[in-house]
């Protein structure tokens, strides 16, 4: 029952909150205590746009626990406008139609749950950017 662990990730999962290094401008998602580029320790909290281009993707057929209902589903690495890359599922699409370079946008979606009576975990997934 990992309630605290999931609750702690709320700012990142619900709002795509990231940390922009005050010294070198590098954006960390998730935020960190130490900038991996310049070693500085001070960050400004920003919210990522969630808009980006598909860098690579795969279609998962044998799904990990809790994800079977959606299999086969696409997971991709998307480079956001801000230059940050994030990994997430791509939903509301036919995986066969995806192409590297496609424009995608994030939506708030249900990611998993701890069984039928346990906690529900929400987060971000990508959808094709067609203005819906």
């Amino acid at each position, binding site marked *: 029952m990992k309630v605290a662990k999931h609750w702690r990730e709320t700012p990142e999962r619900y709002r795509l909150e990231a940390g922009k290094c005050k010294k070198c401008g590098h954006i960390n998602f998730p935020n960190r205590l130490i900038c991996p580029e310049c070693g500085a320790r001070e960050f400004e909290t920003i919210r990522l746009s969630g808009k980006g281009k598909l860098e690579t993707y795969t279609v998962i057929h044998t799904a990990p626990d809790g994800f079977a*209902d959606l299999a086969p589903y696409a997971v991709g690495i998307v480079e956001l406008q801000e230059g940050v890359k994030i990994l997430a599922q791509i*939903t509301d699409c036919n995986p066969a139609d995806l192409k590297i370079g496609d424009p995608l946008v994030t939506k*708030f*979606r*249900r990611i998993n749950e701890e069984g039928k009576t346990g906690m*529900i975990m929400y987060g971000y997934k990508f959808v094709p950017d067609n203005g*819906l």
Partner: protein
Amino acid sequence: MDVGIVGYGTQIPRYRIKVEEIAKVWGADAPSYKKGLNLNEKSVPCPDEDVATLTVNAARNALLRAGINPMEIGAVYVGSESHPYAVKPTGTILAEALGICPHVHTADFEFACKAGTEAMFVALHLVKSGVMKYAIGAGSDTSQGAPGDALEYSASAGSAAYVMGADNLVAVLENTHCFMTDTPDFWRREGAHYPEHGGRFTGEPAYWKHVSGAVNAMLEKANMKPEDFNYIIFHQPNGKFPAQAALKLGFKEPQFRHGLLTPVLGNTYSASSPLGLAATLDVANPDDKILLVSYGSGAGSDAFIFRTTDRLLKVRNLAPLVRKQLDEYKVYLEYGTYAKFRRKILKPE
């Protein structure tokens, strides 16, 4: 002071299932369902969608049109009969996703299909009372119909969210009236997976009595006649009831045409009339009069009279239109995938 809608937004899932597909499995006569309900297909939520996700996405769209500082929202209310948790509010998830915690009020509403307009009613009146600058009222559902039951053809999913405020309005609230009695037409007991209903009892003593009761009282209170309205939206459990009720009450088809979504959407329960209102706002002109009448089993109706403003035209295209979410990029499911998505299949624990 004037209060009303500052911004509105919606979210409808991409998946659909046709009446024929459901009828095929249960050996039912599809044409008679389609005709009897004036219903062709309904929306189906993806396994990764629920009332929380639909509401968050609808509310984010509403904020795009509202153009306000979200930190000035004093309360968020979500009405649904399929909240993700039986105990733990959907409103807290919405507030956290919008980033407006912790100095904000929330409560979850339920009253069968009128939980959405309840949320809207309370949001409007809190702003009117002067205790807060903005409040969100949203109606969302991912309701289920029992397999093989008549309600399976129509129970669908969607969300509409409204940012209520006192300035920069797209629609001014002119009047409200609520009509409510204790009527056992449709209910779901704690722990039951599917709701039960009173069959034909759900017509005259329930839907008709409360919708007409609310409309008649509203018209009298506001000193208005049916022909004074440009648009009307009634709660739409199927494509028939709202049309019959409207015609019987003296309204005409062009008035309810744009707000009647059920034929291609199904019954989105707490989002039903709120989505009809959003679809109407998508096409209305400034200074149009709109009558919104919801219905919730148990039973009651909330009536609202809105008058649109110039600002509606300025902000309308800042978020997706209802018809775009309804008509574009639809994906049709066959019954097996639909049953899997809606967790109607018994799986091992």
